[in-house]
């Protein structure tokens, strides 16, 4: 029973265009969402997060949108750069942080072509 779903295993985008990575979740008790980026042979690195009380958070080229009614969030990268090519994981945390672990999706491999 996957609580965090990334239905697109891969995405290919041209350099300079927008990359949109999607994530759906099933548990309405999640209160915090994060995106991690992972290069081969490295651990995931934190990218951006959003609290469930917000619907948008922006950090430079990265923006995360949260639609609570649809239980959907997305990561927008504008403009996309070849260095953005990596696997992107969506993660969620339960209300109150009483459970410290994050629940991850399976990831989406982004390829940005020059």
């Amino acid at each position, binding site marked *: 029973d996957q609580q965090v779903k990334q239905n697109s295993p891969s995405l290919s985008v041209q350099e300079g265009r927008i990359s949109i990575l999607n994530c759906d979740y099933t548990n309405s008790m999640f209160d915090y969402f994060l995106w991690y980026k992972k290069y081969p042979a490295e*651990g995931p690195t934190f990218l951006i997060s959003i609290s469930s009380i917000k619907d948008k958070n922006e950090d430079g080229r990265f923006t995360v949108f949260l639609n609570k009614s649809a239980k959907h969030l997305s990561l927008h990268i504008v403009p996309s750069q070849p260095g953005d090519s990596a696997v992107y*994981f969506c993660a969620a945390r339960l209300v109150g942080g009483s459970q410290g*672990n994050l629940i991850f999706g399976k990831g989406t491999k982004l390829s940005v072509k020059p």
Partner: protein
Amino acid sequence: GAGVSQSPSNKVTEKGKDVELRCDPISGHTALYWYRQSLGQGLEFLIYFQGNSAPDKSGLPSDRFSAERTGGSVSTLTIQRTQQEDSAVYLCASSPGLNNEQFFGPGTRLTVL
């Protein structure tokens, strides 16, 4: 300062052997987590430690898996009588507290032949 480090980076073992994986968290981080990533899967939570509290072991897949954290710092994940399905990348993360961003190490790739 140094990030989270893990050793070994790669481990190949034979089915039935025991293995120990080590994690050195960021100094001062009170929370430490173990995850694993099997081929084509997301990160699967295994166990976490927070300060002096009892660890949350709810993600451990079987009683062959155990972990300890000595002195509130270094952690060791032990897998006894390894099976081929244990093959995965084992990732450790630490954070200043439970509700903070988690910083990941590079992982240990375990291959059970």
